[in-house]
């Protein structure tokens, strides 16, 4: 499969009163056609900022992309004109956001909002757009889609709204769907519905997906490949089974360990990661996870580890081999 998106050395900073916050610090990854990439991390680790930076959706000021490239089909999203990137947003790369409540404009009808990308990118007239929207709403499982076009967002339940949001993102048949914590605000049963829906649509439409989440459970059944972020860095990336089966970075290990599992027989004590995620007021010259790391060695305080290959297609940014507890050479 050819790579459809390549992000290289992306850096994003925010200017605040306290100083410049280094939110994303040289993130690189790539996405193949039809592939699902899961990006996992705690809040504030820079996962949302990464994709927002890519699509140039971070508010500026205070945010600013300071370095890097985001090549979409070979064209750099970060340097193209406003006009060009507008043609990509919503048409070829579209997004689904976390909170389906606030992500819809409360005063416009669903039909209007969902058809907007069609008007902009496909130049459809109102009638055509309406048909297409109704078709799309049916596809995401909204009952009586024709009648609901004139409804307002508040007339939908949370789950339904998220379905509409997905319909809106997919209405122009994009090549990439970016889902930014799309299920976090939903109940477990609804979450399952949404994950199911996306899976089905992916198989049907064949788009690539970047799925951002902090919940390692949700993504396990969905992703092909995973990237774990911490402090604005990708600290581990691997195919999904590899990552869950053989996590190598202490942070990934900790994350997996802190999750209780339904299928566990006994009651083990949860692994907790002490301390707090960092707020990076300067670009760290050491491993940002070192202050919370059980494995940290002297080197961790002096040198920020780059992503290093640990097995084919499995990369980890840690000086310590967590299986042996020894420092990598």
């Amino acid at each position, binding site marked *: 499969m050819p790579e459809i998106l390549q992000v290289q050395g992306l850096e994003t900073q925010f200017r605040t*009163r306290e100083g410049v916050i280094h939110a994303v610090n040289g993130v690189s990854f790539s996405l193949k056609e039809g592939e699902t990439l899961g990006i996992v991390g705690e809040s504030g680790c820079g996962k949302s900022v990464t994709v927002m930076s890519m699509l140039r959706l971070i508010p500026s000021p205070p945010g600013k992309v300071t370095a890097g490239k985001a090549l979409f089909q070979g064209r750099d999203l970060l340097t193209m004109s406003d006009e060009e990137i507008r043609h990509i947003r919503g048409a070829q790369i579209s997004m689904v956001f976390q909170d389906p409540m606030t992500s819809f404009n409360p005063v416009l009808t669903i039909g209007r909002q969902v058809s907007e990308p069609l008007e902009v990118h496909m130049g459809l007239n109102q009638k055509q757009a309406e048909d297409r929207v109704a078709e799309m709403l049916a596809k995401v499982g909204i009952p009586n889609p024709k009648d609901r076009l004139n409804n307002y967002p508040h007339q939908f339940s949370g789950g339904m709204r998220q379905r509409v949001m997905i319909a809106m993102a997919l209405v122009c048949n994009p090549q990439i769907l970016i889902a930014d914590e799309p299920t976090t605000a939903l109940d477990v049963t609804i979450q399952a519905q949404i994950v199911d829906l996306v899976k089905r649509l992916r198989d049907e439409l064949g788009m690539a997906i970047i799925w951002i989440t902090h919940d390692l459970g949700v993504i396990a059944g969905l992703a092909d490949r995973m990237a774990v972020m911490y402090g604005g860095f990708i600290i581990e990336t691997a195919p999904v089974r590899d990552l869950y089966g053989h996590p190598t970075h202490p942070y990934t290990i900790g994350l997996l360990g802190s999750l209780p599992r339904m299928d566990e027989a006994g009651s083990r004590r949860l692994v907790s990661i002490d*301390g*707090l995620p960092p707020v*990076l007021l*300067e670009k760290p010259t050491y491993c940002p996870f070192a*202050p919370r790391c059980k494995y940290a060695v002297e080197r961790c*305080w002096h040198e920020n580890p780059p992503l290093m290959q640990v097995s084919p297609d499995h990369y980890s940014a840690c000086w310590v081999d967590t299986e042996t507890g020894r420092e990598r050479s």
Partner: protein
Amino acid sequence: MATKPSVNPTPSQIADLTMMTVKPRSLWVDAWYRLIRNKAAVAGMIVIIFFLFVAIFANQLAPHNPLQTNAGKSFLPPAWMEVGPNGRPSDPAFFFGTDNLGRDVLSRTIYGARVSIVVGFLPTIVIVLVGSVVGLLAGYKGGQFDNILMRFTDVIYAFPDLLFFIIVMVTLRETFIGKLLNGLFLLFMALAIVNWVGFARVVRGQVLSLKEKEFIEAARCIGASDARIMFRHLLPNSLGPIIILSALTIPGMIITEAILGYLGLGLTPSTNPNDIFITSWGALMLDGQAAINAQPWLILPPAICVSLMVLAFTFLGDGLRDALDPRLQGTQ
């Protein structure tokens, strides 16, 4: 994480270290730092302090007795004009010129600051006290009490303020209250009566939203009494909006006093130079307005002072809002 310890400390030690290096800061202190970073608000504060100073030391600052009439020196132009449009030469002793009785406009303007300061603050204090308590009760207790307050506001909003002012001033003129502070006390009360309802409504709204916060439930859960919840928990947390609203109520009071003064209501003119309240900017504007063609300097100093003062309070109020309203944090 500015420092890089060379030894490997435990994570909690690091957290402690970073926390102990900064002094504890209440939200008030935070807000204060935000406030003093706001240039407009600081300018506003300086102006207010300046006028406060002028008001307190009016006796010492005024170059003349503000009641001293100077026969033959009426309508003198201000010092920077050689000859006024009325052909009279200026007198350096009267910097802002003189009014129709030959009284020093500068001195009168200085004394006028007192009324504006007091009329800005005192009714506001009454409004804040009454409005906060009623708003607190209505918001917290709800029910019929709340219902009555809300219905009462309908009536007050529909009610003609001016009629009320005029009639109160006229009917209570002869009473003890009417004479207190040259009639200012009555004015305070009238202003407060008309304005507390709006204030109560805002506090009520604030309380209604705070009431839903979990820390109020937490307080109930640990057995706090209603009074304690209202005054220890709800009030301090509504204080931000209350302060903002007070700062924005003050200029309203000053303008209202000016307008009432302009209509000839409010302050009773004093004849005793030892009185605290001798004249007000509103009354000075009233004097000046009739003579605006010939002697614009009569209306200029009080008009500019009123505008400056109101501007200062508005800037301060805006600054306070930015500093105290957490929702706006980060937008500046």
